[in-house]
């Protein structure tokens, strides 16, 4: 068996990547933090502008609208867009990572709780993001189909719009619920496997 000293010697003399100066590392981490914050801010801004544009457009459409189904669809979309803007500004930032200055067991448990929280948030996307917009678009498509049917102009191609929305929303749902949640679950499992026995909460 290798002695402790031999292992320690092998460990401490292993080749490592070249060193960088402390000042250089400080610049790297400051730039990195700034870049990350900027990315989140820009993403939220883009989504807010898009949701605001949708709200303005469908408010205009709802204004003086006599068709009740079109009015309902437009109002659902306006309300859904405003709700998305509120949700983004209220919950749109990444939750902070647990404080790393604690015992490993405590940190791992905090990390598991964070992943559970993120999984819950991602699973809620269908309710706060997808459902209001999907319901609004589907209502508008229903109004269009009804109108075409009343005029005797209804064809199979009129159903392409709701099918298209459904496919797009199903794709977004899949990305969040299956791919996103699955990835978070794998990360969570990796952390759980490292929590010492007897300290696992799950």
């Amino acid at each position, binding site marked *: 068996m290798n002695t402790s000293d031999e292992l320690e010697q092998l460990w401490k003399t292993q080749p490592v990547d070249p060193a*960088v100066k402390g000042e250089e590392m400080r610049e790297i981490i400051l730039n990195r933090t700034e870049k990350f914050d900027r990315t989140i801010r820009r993403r939220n801004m883009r989504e807010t502008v898009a949701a605001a544009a949708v709200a303005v457009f469908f408010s205009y459409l709802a204004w003086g609208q006599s068709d009740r189904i079109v009015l309902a669809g437009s109002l659902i979309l306006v309300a859904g867009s405003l709700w998305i803007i509120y949700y983004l500004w209220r919950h749109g930032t990444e939750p902070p990572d647990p404080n790393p200055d604690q015992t490993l067991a405590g940190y791992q448990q905090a990390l598991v709780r964070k992943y559970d929280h993120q999984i819950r948030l991602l699973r809620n996307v269908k309710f706060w993001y997808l459902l209001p917009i999907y319901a609004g678009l589907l209502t508008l498509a229903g109004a269009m189909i009804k109108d075409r049917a009343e005029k005797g102009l209804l064809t199979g191609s009129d159903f392409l719009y709701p099918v298209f929305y459904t496919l797009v929303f199903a794709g977004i749902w899949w990305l969040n619920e299956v791919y996103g949640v699955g990835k978070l679950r794998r990360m969570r499992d990796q952390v759980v496997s490292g929590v010492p026995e007897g300290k696992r909460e799950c």
Partner: protein
Amino acid sequence: MVAEPAADETQTGSCNERFCELFEAYQPALRRLVSAYVTNHADREDLLQEIAAGIWKSLPGFRGDSSERTWIYRIAHNIAVRRSSQVRARSAREPGLKGSFDRPSGERSAEDALLVGEKQRALVDGIRELPAADRQIVTLHLEGLSAPEIEEITGVTAGAIATRLTRIRQKLSERMQGSRDHEHIG
């Protein structure tokens, strides 16, 4: 031991200097620690930067309740656990530091250097294959931390650490022996 920072020092002035001093002093150990978690060069650099960022953010709150080195290792291992949970599946398929372990040192003959390189690779690979808690304990032990210090960092009792270390050493020795036998057969 680092002195307690003044309330207004936070992220400026002497805090910058303290960060630079600490980072440069512990960089070799942090780089070794990183190699126990991820194999790919980009992931290693990324993890080192995240650890440095963790130290930077936590530095104003460091009150000297624990020693500076247990404080740094605690932050480093915690961040490594989080980061490696994100990249582990991917990096497991990548070759890692193979090339650098084969690099002959000027002080040894080429054959000796290759042999040592093989042992080092087997050791690091073996450590990387351990469950996270064992990996933390053994890397801290190999860095020369005492059982009470490891207990302070991991929360695992000193008695349990001693038991685990015996088992881990056995496992690593077998792994290194197996690797040597495999090389000879190959």
